[in-house]
Each structure stands twice: as structure tokens, then as C-alpha cells.
């Protein structure tokens, strides 16, 4: 095992070589993760906001459940999704097992509770601030929800990033439901696991650095967008 710097050098060499296989793997990673996070937000944002704003029986229990599900073990999610999508399972006829769609479904299940639980906290806090104003203006329930989500949009961007971080680093679930099939379901994390099991620790580590760099780039872009949007809003 050579030094850390040679691994770092190897990682850069990998990226700048623009190896088509690596680009395909990175592309699939991004596609799966971004799609999963998108759908997780589609469900998690309104769900979290609703739990944060409305009073209804079982609300506390639901809040506890959402928070607990943030710690959902990916391997268990993978196993459950496998059993659902397996040819012998209830959704077998859809033939989704060992496809990117299966991986998106698994990651979506992992990320949605994170988005929902964090959204609940953000929106609940903001609602406390706005409650009197809403009451005096007689704002309807749906409008309340939407204006809270809109006003909290910058914080919610960070919520989405938390979901992205979890999904992009996840390996246990996508390995089971995707099968790590070359050119079909092989993503960054499963490639890293494969190279580690081949004993190619340097290459595995270099791929890890690449993955980190991609996550960094995506996060930096989102944060920069947010910062300039904030400036524009208060200018």
C-alpha cells in the first residue's frame, strides 16, 4: 500500500483519463441518486410539512416514527425491496429486479423519512413564528402549508442535500436489488465494494475520492445557487 498521495494522484488520473466505463458508472450513480432524492422530496416535503403544521390524533407517534426511520438500515431496505420485486414476490411481474428502477425505489425508501423528518422540524419551527399572522389573516390550511414550504425553501434545500448525501453513499440496498451488473446497475459505491473485494484497495480508494469529489461538487453548486438566490431576494 503506497501513500495516501499516490492514491489521490490515482484518483485524479482516473477522472482525467475520462474512462468511458467510469463515466458511465458516475452517470448512473447520479441518475439513480438524483431521481431517488427527487421523488423522496416529492413525498417527504409535503408529508413533513403536514405533520409539522396540523394537529391530528397520532401526530406524536408519526413524528417519532419518522425520526426513527431516519436510521433505516439500507441492507434491510434492500432485502425487503428484493422480496417485493423478486419473481416470486408480489411485484415480480413488473420485472424491475436488477434494474436501475429497483435501485431508485430502494434509495427512495431510505431517503424519504430523512426528508420528511427534517422538513417537519423546519416547518414546525417556522409555523410557530407565523401562527399569529396566519390566524389574523385567516389563511386556509393548504395556503399555510405552501407558504411555509416556500419561506423555508433555503433550509429545505439543505434537507434535500442531507437526503442526497445518504443516497449517494449508500451501498447495501443497491447491491442487493441492483446486483452490481456491469454496464446495467453498477454504480460508484458497488464498484468500490467490488474493487475492495478484488483486493484492489488503491483503485477502490481512488474511486472513493472521486465519489467524494462528485458529492462535493453537487453540494457546492446547490449551496452557491442558494447563496446567490438569498442575495437576490434581499438585495
Amino acid at each position, binding site marked *: 500500500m503506497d501513500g495516501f498521495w499516490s492514491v489521490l494522484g490515482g484518483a485524479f488520473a482516473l477522472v482525467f483519463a475520462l474512462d468511458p466505463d467510469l463515466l*458511465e458508472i458516475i*452517470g*448512473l450513480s*447520479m*441518475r439513480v441518486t*438524483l431521481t431517488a432524492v427527487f421523488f423522496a422530496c416529492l413525498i417527504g416535503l409535503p408529508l413533513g410539512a403536514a405533520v409539522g403544521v396540523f394537529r391530528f390524533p397520532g401526530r406524536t407517534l408519526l413524528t417519532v416514527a419518522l425520526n426513527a426511520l431516519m436510521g433505516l438500515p439500507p441492507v434491510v431496505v434492500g432485502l425487503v425491496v428484493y422480496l417485493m420485486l*423478486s*419473481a*416470486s*414476490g408480489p411485484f*415480480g*411481474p413488473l*420485472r424491475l*429486479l*436488477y434494474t*436501475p428502477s429497483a435501485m431508485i425505489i430502494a434509495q427512495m425508501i431510505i431517503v424519504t423519512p430523512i426528508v420528511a423528518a427534517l422538513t417537519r422540524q423546519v416547518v414546525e419551527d417556522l409555523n410557530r413564528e407565523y401562527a399569529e399572522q396566519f390566524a389574523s389573516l385567516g389563511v386556509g390550511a393548504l395556503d399555510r402549508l405552501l407558504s411555509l414550504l416556500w419561506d423555508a425553501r433555503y433550509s429545505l434545500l439543505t434537507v434535500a442535500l442531507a437526503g442526497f448525501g445518504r443516497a449517494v453513499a449508500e451501498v447495501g440496498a443497491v447491491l442487493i436489488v441492483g*446486483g*452490481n*451488473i*456491469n*454496464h*446495467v446497475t453498477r454504480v460508484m459505491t458497488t464498484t468500490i465494494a*467490488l474493487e*475492495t*473485494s*478484488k*483486493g*484492489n*484497495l488503491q*483503485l477502490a480508494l481512488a474511486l472513493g475520492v472521486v465519489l467524494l469529489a462528485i458529492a462535493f*461538487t*453537487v453540494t*457546492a*453548486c*446547490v449551496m*452557491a*445557487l442558494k447563496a*446567490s*438566490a438569498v442575495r437576490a431576494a434581499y438585495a
Partner: protein
Amino acid sequence: MIRRLMSLALATIVLAAVTVSASIADEKFIIIQSTTSTQNSGLFDHILPAFRDKTGIEVRVVAVGTGQAIRNAVNGDGDVLLVHSKPSEEKFVADGFGISRADVMYNDFVIVGPASDPAGIRGSRDAIDALPKIAESETPFASRGDDSGTHKAELRLWKAANIDAAASSGTWYRETGSGMGSTLNTAIGMDAYVMTDRATWIAFGNKATHEIMVEGDPRMFNQYGVIVVNPEVHPHVKAEMGQVFADWLLSKEGQAAIADYTVDGQQLFFPNANDGSS
């Protein structure tokens, strides 16, 4: 300006992701459930392009342990099995899940260990003699412990040596419960002996000071077999294309492709289809 640049970067990433997704077209393909040894050693990367060029059929490999591969195939999540545990394979066919089983190729298992060789088994050609020495010296031994073909073969050897290794699990006998490569990494990390198929070992990139200690015992013969999953049990199974693949593996051409594959000048798998055995 910065904002525009950042939007552009983000858009590019999203676009790239979408493009890749579009390029994965729906083609003729079969799924084969196979073992980590065939995948990690690079055999599939070597032989599959030739098959694809000839037939236009894409082969998607799911590489797991033999036990899990068979269970996945029982569930109907694969069209072909290529694994290495003959008793389990024959049971799979007898239970009606597979059409028929054929020998494809073989290699052998070896026991590797640290160069210091604390149990003094270097150069042994008799596993039944070597394993008790490991047990007596209580030198760490890493076992797959995952119901894989290699794990089952290892258990058969312990049984033949009349040692109840599982009773020492957690002391010198350590079940990693993971694939061959992970188990090798673990064994190397704790200076343990470990049994592996020769192909994975030769292609393995993190050998450190470990080397082959025991080899050449006929009991460590490692036979691979191919089975097409029975479409009568799972009607969606692509048995026809699966049969094309199995036939090709057993054909002169497929057998030659297997024999052709070398790492560091060493042949990893030895074709033996139609040698008379079932």
C-alpha cells in the same frame, strides 16, 4: 456570473445523468446467477464479449455466493446458474428448479496463510493433515461462513478431518460471513489462514505476505456446473436464450475461451465439459 456558472454545472450533471439513462436500451439479455470467484477473477469480462458478438445476447451477471445464487434462482430471479457446489446443484435440479446440470470447468482450492506459517503446514499436499495442525496451534483461520460453494467445500474438509471447527467459532476459527475477496482482506489483516479458490487468489490484488501453503489435495478439486432454470416453474425465465448460453459454454468455442483466460501467465479455469461425468 457565478450563479450562472453554477446553474450550468448543475444542469450538466443532471443532463449527463439523463443521457446515460437513455443510452441503456432494452436489449436481448439473460441474467445469470453466479459466484464471486468467476466475476472477481475477471473470467466473465474475458469470455462474455465473444458470446455476445456471436449471438447478440447480453449476459448480465449477478455475482454472489453459491448458496445465495441458488436461492435467487429458486425465486426465479435468474435464467442460468453457474456455480460450484455439485451436491447443491444436483438438489436444485432434482427439486425441479433446473432443467439439467452439466460440468463446465474446474480449478482447485488452496489454503493460503501468512509467510511466518505458525501452524507449520507449508508445502503440504494433504488438507486433512494440515487442518488439524491449524486447529491445534489455534492459529486464526478465516472462514467464509456464508453458505457459499467455497464455504461448503471447507466444511466438508473439516468434517473429513474430524474437527468441529464451528465449536471454536469466535476464537481461532473466525466466520466472516462475507464474500471471498472480503474474507481474504480480513484474513490478511489478522494473519489468518484461509481457504480460497485458486482463480480468486491469483487475481487478488492485496496478497501482502500471504502465500499458498496447501495445494494439490484431490479433495480440494473445485468443479463448476451450469444449469438452465426450469421455465415450467417460472414461466418468465428466458430458458431458450439461457440454453444458447449453456450450450455455448460447453461448446468447443466456449471451452476454448475459458482455457484462454490467464492472469500473470497462469490459466485460472480448466474446461472439462463432456468429460463423461454428469
